[in-house]
Structure formats: C-alpha cells, structure tokens
C-alpha cells in the first residue's frame, strides 16, 4: 500500500520530491491521510521542510492543524502515506519513535508542565531520564535555558505558582533542554493574555534567529510575517495554499485564503 503511494507521488509532484531528495530535508510528509473514525481529518498532505526552515500553519478551527503537527511526533497516528523525520520513517517501530520524539520538541497550547515538579525539575527530567545526562550537568544546562527565556529566578517554584506567560516560557525551555532538531508549537499563545503573548513571542523570535527548524500553528500574523519562511493555510484537512509570507498576505491565490485572511486581519 505504502509502496504504491510513494511511486505515484513521484509522477504527480516532482517538485516536492526534488527537494525531498536533497539532503537537508528534515521533515517529509508524503500523501499523508488520516481519519478519526469516519472523519477524514488530513487529506493527502504533501510537505517537505528543510533544516532551519520556519513554517507557520494557519487555518480555521477544526481544519486539522493540530492533528498535522501531532502526526509529526506521532502523538497521532496517520493511516496512509509516509512521514519521515530526520531520516527515520514513522511507523510502529517503537525504537524509532522514542528517538524521533527526543529530537522533536513540542510546545502545547495548555503548557502541560508537570505540576508535581519544580520548574527546574521539569526542565531536567527528560535530559536525565532519556538522554542520561548527569544531574549536575542537566541542572546547569537547564539554568542556561531559563536564562534564555528570562526567568532564571523561578527555577525552584512549582508551575502552579507562575503566570501563564511564564509557564509557557518554561515549557519552551523544557523542550529546548533536549537539544531538539525540530520544534513544534501548537497555538502556544492562544491561552494567554495579550501582555503575556508578547513575552512568549519574543522568546520564539529569538529561537528562530538561532536557526532552529520550527513549525508553528498560530494565528499571530505579525509573527508569521516577521519570522516565517513559508506560511501554510489549511482548511478541511487540506493544504490549500503555501507561500512565502509576503506573497501569502499580499497576494493570496485561493478564495478561501482571502476570506480567512480578511476575517483574521479584521479582528
């Protein structure tokens, strides 16, 4: 099944595969389809992302944005097509899976910090238990990342004692502690107040400047304009349009994109 889809790909989208063949493609989605029961959430998604690229994904609610990025670290399983992350094909092979997950950081809308651990322990948990780094080294690295997200003074507090913006910055630092090659953001700012949105976006802009590969689901169009290399618009589980930001915002091709942009820019 997979075999045949791959072959048809070559015929249909030569452009996609040409870039896929080049060595610095870090994420490749090839005719990916996914269903929730009867519901077709992802329809024939083709996407290749090169190392260091910053992708912003937008689209109306329920269009499958979260599902798409959650497929990349296999928090959701796709049923058809191939997903290749950093040269490893996502499949039922468990060993691959943990390796991929430790190289792909993820930041959630609701932070998902571990409430029973201090901020510092949240940051060092995975380095110690997955990467097997000695505790003292992990602590040092964690403090450096807390510095970077500008909250080193909160290290010994529990997540419940921090503001939303601080929690999200801790969550970003927690992912960075694993030295990931790719960072996925699922609406990292949509649970935050405007003041806090700014502080989180600043951290993300700074991260983008370091050359991290980032896929960001967000409706912050300002962020998309300044940071993204490409903006993807999704609707009904399909990639409707994909372009570099200037073209995307000033010269949208599809009517649905135009409608979406007019709605979101007017709010």
């Amino acid at each position: 099944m997979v075999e045949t889809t791959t072959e048809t790909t070559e015929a249909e989208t030569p452009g996609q595969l040409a870039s896929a063949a080049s060595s610095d493609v870090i994420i490749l989605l090839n005719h990916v389809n996914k269903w929730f029961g009867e519901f077709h959430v992802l329809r024939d998604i083709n996407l290749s992302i090169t190392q260091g690229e910053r992708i912003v994904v937008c689209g109306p609610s329920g269009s499958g944005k979260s599902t798409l990025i959650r497929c990349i670290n296999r928090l959701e399983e796709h049923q058809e097509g191939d997903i290749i992350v950093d040269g490893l094909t996502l499949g039922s092979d468990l060993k691959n899976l943990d390796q991929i997950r430790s190289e792909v950081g993820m930041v959630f809308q609701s932070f998902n910090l571990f409430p029973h651990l201090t901020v510092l322990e949240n940051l060092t948990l995975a380095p110690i238990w997955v990467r097997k780094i000695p505790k003292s080294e992990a602590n040092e690295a964690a403090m450096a990342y807390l510095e970077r997200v500008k909250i080193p003074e909160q290290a010994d507090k529990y997540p419940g004692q921090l503001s939303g913006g601080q929690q999200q910055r801790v969550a970003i630092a927690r992912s960075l502690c694993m030295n990931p090659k790719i960072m996925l953001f699922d609406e990292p700012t949509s649970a935050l107040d405007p003041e806090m949105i700014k502080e989180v976006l600043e951290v993300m802009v700074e991260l983008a400047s370091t050359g991290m590969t980032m896929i960001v689901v967000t409706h912050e169009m300002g962020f998309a304009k300044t940071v993204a290399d490409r903006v993807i618009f999704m609707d009904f589980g399909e990639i409707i349009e994909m372009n570099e930001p200037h073209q995307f915002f000033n010269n949208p091709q599809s009517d649905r994109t135009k409608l979406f942009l007019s709605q979101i820019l007017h709010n």
Partner: protein
Amino acid sequence: MADVVLAEGYRPPPTVQGTWFAWLRDNLFSTWINTLLTFGALYIVYFAVSGVWAWGITNAVWEAENRRVCFDILAERAQEQGVDELTGACWAGVISWFDSFIVGRYPRGEMWRINLGGLLLVVWMVPIWLPGVRDKIYVGFSTVFLYPFLGFYLFAGGEKGLFLQVMMSLAIVVLIGNTLNGYHGVRTGRSLPAVVIAGLGMKASSDKKQRNTLLAIFAAAFALAFWAQMDWALVSVEWNLWGGLFLTLVISGIGIAFALPGGIVLAMGRRSQLPVIRILCTGFIEVFRSVPLITILFMATTMFPLFLPEGFTLNKLVQVIVAVCLFNACYMAEVVRAGLQAIPRGQYEAAMAMGLGYWKMMGLIIMPQALKFMIPNIVGNFIGLLKDTTLVSIIGLFDILNMLKAVSQDVPWRGLHKEPLVVGAALFFIICFAMSKYSRHLEETLGGGTQR
C-alpha cells in the same frame, strides 16, 4: 511585619475578637430552639457516657482470680451502697488474657521476638517521618521488600535456608545503614553515602571511584552481617501458634504492602493497549470484586490445594495471606484507576513528546500525581482491609477476634463476652483512627508542596 511598607488606606484584616463565651453564645445558644437542642444533646451524651463510665470505671473490678470473684465483689459493693444490684466490668479477665489478645498462643517465652520484630519495624520506618532525611523513597521500598525476611525469621524461627540467610543479612545491613542515614539526615541534612565519602576524604575523587568504594563498604558490611547471623538460631514457632493482634497485623500488613503495587499493576493492565492483558486484568478484577472476601477465604483454603502439585502442601496461613492480597489488590486497582483518570491527557502527551517511554512516563509523571489524589481512598481501603482481616477467624485462625471470643470459653472466665470485645473495639479504633488522621496529614503536606 515591620519592614512591610503599607500604602495609604491599607489596614490589616479585622481580627475576630472571640472569647469562649461569645463562641458559646453564637453557636450553642443563639436562639431558643438552639438552646433547647443543646441541652437535649447534652442530656443524651450524659446519659450514654454516665452509664458506660459507671460500668467501665466506677464499678469495674480490676483484680480477681475468676469471674465468680468479680461477681462476689460487685455484690458486696452493692450491699455496702444499699442497692439491689451493681453492674460493672470485670477487667481482671481481660488483664489476665491481654497477652493472648496480642500474640495468641505464641509461646510466652518467645514473645520478645514479636516485640523485637515490631520495634525493628518502627525503627526501620521512623526515618520516613524525620525532617531532612534523604532518599526516603528507598526507606519505603526497603521496608516493603527487605523487612519481611527479617520479620519472618524472628517470628517463625527454625531452619534458615541460604536464600533466607542472604536476604536477612541484606536486611540487617540496610536496617543499620537506614538508621545511620536517618541520623545524619536529621543532624546535617546529608545522606549516609555523602557522609562516608566526606569522612574518607574522597570528595574530589571521580564518581566511579566513589561508587566502587561505597560498594566495597557495603560488601564488607554484608559479609560481616552474614557471618554474624550464621550462629543465630531461633526456636521454630509453628504458624498455627501465631495469633491475636499480631496475626491480624501480619496478615493485613502483608496485604497492605502487596495491595498497592499489585493494584497499580492490575490498573495499568486494565488500561493497557494490548487486548489480552486488558481482558485478563479486567476479568480478574471483576471476579474478585464481585465475590465476598469470606467466600474467597473459604475457596482459598479448599481450592488452592487442588492447583498445587501432588504432595505439596501449603499451610493455611499462606493460603489466607495470598487470598487477602489478591482480594485487596483488586480493590486497590479500582482506586488506582480512578486516580489515573484524574490525570489530564496533556500530561501523558507532554511526557510522550519528550521521548519518555511508557514505564518512565508512568513512574515519573503519572503515578506520582495520581497517588496524591488517591491517598484518602488508599488509606480508606487499608482500614477496611485491617478490619476485614478479622474474617479469618471464621476459617479457624486464631486472630484477635477469635482470641477475644476465647475468653468466654476459658473456665475461670466463662461467659465473659462484653469486656474483651470492648477492648478489641478500642484496639481497632486506635489503629484505624491513627491511620485516618495520618492520611489527612499526608494529604495536607503533599498538597501544600505543589499547589496545582
């Protein structure tokens, strides 16, 4: 307080100017009806307490050779006071039987072994409650996994096989290490290994060298303990002589120690992705939960032997303990499952997204949070387990309930029912009440640390 600069217009919150008199007025005598209720309730309490007080304290007989003497003393007193009859407790019977309540028919000369075993258990666990002690989790683990070997030999005695000898030596070493660790923890907040390394002046050495040194010390201590325990011989005390509160605590203690880990395994099995494991665990849990404990106890003593190879007999006590463990693990599994359900999905996802495997995710992220939710239910179950253990009296073990009843069969104390049962109730109350108070305390301290 003094260095807090208060902004203009700020004032401290009003303090409640409560005297006990005001409290009484507000809470007990605020209206006529309330006053009436207060007096009514006071009268009922007085009525109940004064009756029990007279029976148990004022009229009670504390010294007598037998029940007859108790009656005679009471009759004499009644005459003195010019009343027809006095009812009073005959505590003398309870006193002469008290040792039996505690240890059953265990030889009196060997009773020190039980006391020592109890004392060692307390010593073993004390560091858990002391401030500043490091690595408390290991204290808990070693209590569950090592103490039983030491306890077993103390209580049972007799021949000890090589395995038991090894485990006992290990237990002895760990007990001593544990106690020293607790001592240093309280005094300086450091762990025993840290103190040893500092004492040897090896702080600067590499991790590996430090670890090897500690291992060598441990091995030497183990060898010493092994050599010391070799000539330690205790007379064998057959299990059927075990009894009283001691037996009750042995059965429920093992049940408690097993129920939680067993319950966690069963609950995780029930939520497993693998259908075979899930169905097995669910079936097991449902079967055990749908059958009364007493039935399981009867089945255990009659049916287990059928599954065993020919010529292999299990003693009744082991059968009962196995049954109690399985039964309670199934109940605990449901408590654990409820706790797991309280953990939001985002916690699992965040853990998985980091690359933590299933076991690390459960052990480091999910269980620690879930256990906190479960403490009240867990302790509730433990209390239930302790009380249910009295059912073993029905299948003929001499647990505390049977010993309490045995008093009335004893020739000098024939017919003495009430007093032993009152004492038994008091013993259970003390243990169970302490457990539930402790669980409240645990909930508060654990809840305070994390502030969800």
